């Protein structure tokens, strides 16, 4: 497989970093070199989280570059639009419909952009826009923390990677009692 660049974005607390660990480890499980990179610390107190993952025969730089990302996985609706310029033309963006309203809007004067504006900017970049009701599906399974697993399912489908390889990696990262519900969430994301 040629080099594949991923960018996972969301808001602190959504499980973006765990998900990017899993994507990187799936790359390894496929026999590829993999790297991932993100920032922890001050900027993450309620802030944006962005994590790069790269697969390839040999990966040097730990981060992909603007305009060259193959898969954008957005855990939050507005973040999909903020980061879509990183996507290469024809890349895929997988969007969780969940909205997390920042303090600048909840207490300040900023306005959270309307759905149409977000849809417009995504469609201007690519035809491959995949919306996922991650939070709703997760709530349906009885645990709102499963949203990131649903999104990983959707990613696995877009990638065309053997779901069992994804699941193997996923299961190793999850405490035993949550394995079954994570599997269900993953298959929901795949669409089965």
């Amino acid at each position: 497989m040629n080099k594949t660049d991923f960018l996972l974005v969301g808001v602190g607390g959504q499980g973006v970093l765990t998900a990017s660990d899993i994507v990187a480890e799936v790359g390894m499980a496929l026999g590829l070199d993999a790297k991932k990179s993100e920032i922890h610390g001050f900027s993450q107190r309620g802030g944006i989280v962005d994590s790069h993952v790269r697969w390839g025969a040999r990966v040097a730089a730990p981060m992909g570059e603007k305009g060259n990302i193959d898969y954008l996985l957005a855990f939050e609706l507005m973040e999909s639009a903020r980061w879509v310029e990183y996507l290469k033309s024809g890349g895929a963006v997988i969007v969780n419909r969940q909205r997390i309203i920042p303090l600048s809007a909840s207490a300040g004067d900023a306005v959270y952009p309307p759905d149409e504006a977000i849809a417009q900017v995504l469609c201007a970049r690519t035809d491959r826009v995949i919306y996922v009701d991650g939070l709703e599906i997760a709530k349906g399974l009885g645990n709102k923390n499963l949203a990131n697993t649903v999104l990983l399912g959707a990613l696995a489908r877009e990638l065309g990677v053997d779901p069992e390889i994804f699941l193997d990696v996923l299961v190793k990262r999850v405490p035993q009692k949550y394995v079954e519900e994570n599997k269900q969430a993953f298959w929901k994301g795949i669409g089965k």
Partner: protein
Amino acid sequence: MKRLLSGNEAIALGAHLAGVKYASAYPGTPSTEILEHLAKYPGVRAEWAPNEKVALDAVAGASYAGGRALASMKHVGLNVASESLFYLAYTGVNAGLVIISADDPGAWSSQNEQDNRQYARFAKVPMLEPADSQEAMDYLARAFDLSEQFDTPVIVRTTTRISHSKSVVDVPAGNGHEPRALKAFARDGAKYVMIPANARRRHPVVEARLKQIAEWAETAPLNQIEWGDKKFGIVSSSVAYQYAREVFDGYSFLKLGMSYPLPEKMIREFAAQVERVVVVEELDPFYEEHIRAWGIPAVGKEYFPILNEFSLAVVREGARKLGVPQPEPAPASPAFQQAIARPPAFCPGCPHRSTFYVLNKLKLRVAGDIGCYAIGVLPPFNAMDTLGCMGASIGVVQGVDGVGANVGKERWVAVIGDSTFFHAGMPALANIIYNRGVSTVLILDNDTTAMTGQQENPGTGTTLQGQPTKKIDIEQVVRGMGIVDVFVVDAFDEPAVEATIKKAVAIADRPTVVIAKGPCVFLPDYPPKYIDEVDAVKCNGCSLCFRVGCPAIFKGELDAKTEKPKAVIDPLLCVACDICLQICPREAIYRVGN
């Protein structure tokens, strides 16, 4: 076995494999996880020190007494520990001693972008720089060997992108760890006791050692030439090398694993064989200045910025200017103008919220410090006037006092956290007490080192390795130092916080300390079992509760009379700290069972 490890995890593993017996650190992004991971390995005693200088002195002691020892810190931590670094350069070591300096190009979590390669030259000690996690693990063993071979402390420098990126590491089977016996300590005052007469005699030893290490570096496998097209010869290290590797694909490379001292002969030979030497390094022109000082024409900072961290795009831009063809950037889609900011905020339930609400309300001048409470500078609080480094707050207010500016309506207070107080606040408080200062110091005691991820500290009663220990009581410390007016207040009681701060700043002829106590919301014993809710009938949209800057409070429907948005509290985010409830003038917020 192949594993995906962060640079910090790999450093901890490398230190374990090298048989490190003692490790000490103060938490600081991006270095924190090194000790957290190392603490879990058998055979090592790993400790949080109150500050980096104390950590390095303890590590010096461990090395003198014969055990391999590691100190780790963020770049600015090495400023604090620098006095110890400089004497260690003279005394040398007994067992191997390694210092990790985790730099932060981009200042993602720091007050500056200093380049700690300069410390290696300044203190005349060797420095290694891994470029990925595999090297991070491998270089630790080399660093300890080098330390013992040349009787010197060794610095291993990472950056945020090395410490926090994950890459594949070939982990040795088993635990690969050989226990090492202590090397006997031989009394040797001429080496270990740096009175002036001995220091003068050690200086030539330091200079000679540096020459020997530079000679060793000429053939050390740490520095490697990868021949390619000789039109360009790239000199690079650390993560900059990884970007350059992709951007200057096919050209010749000199990859430096040792950033100081540099292999002059090797660089000369490399330069002689390529048409153009290009130095690709983040931050300062450290290699470039060395290379040019040797009379070798090299370019660097004209093409690659001195500011901020690098990326593929940044290195590509420099390469393009050098005439190296690069793929055209994908057509830019306009940035999404409607995306709104997500500024960092105090978490719902944060004990700091009440203090900053009050500081804003009372319009006090605030000398701030390093910790989550730096968020107090942002709206809606706008309650911080200065912030420099660990412990600076208390020092700064004494100077404000000293020029007679801490009076009347311009009353200043210092704000500092519990871990930061132990780090560098105590000497500054002694300064106020000793020099007849009259400032008010607010110690925000959340019972943890919160900003770096809830690490233990001398006030928490637990060690890094989970042992119960004496919990140092800040109130007793402050009283013992001589503060008579010490006010301890519940941080979750806004009216009490307000009354207490007013009372403290009203005392104008002697120093006062307010300790606002309340646990960080991430601690397991965080109390609330309820949530707060807004009574939509009572709420008239007065908007006062928006001034507590809580991510759980949202603007809802407009009030019919005032035409202003009523408050709504998100039950998923609220943890019922009750600060909004306490300040609501219409008693429209109340607790409900969760």
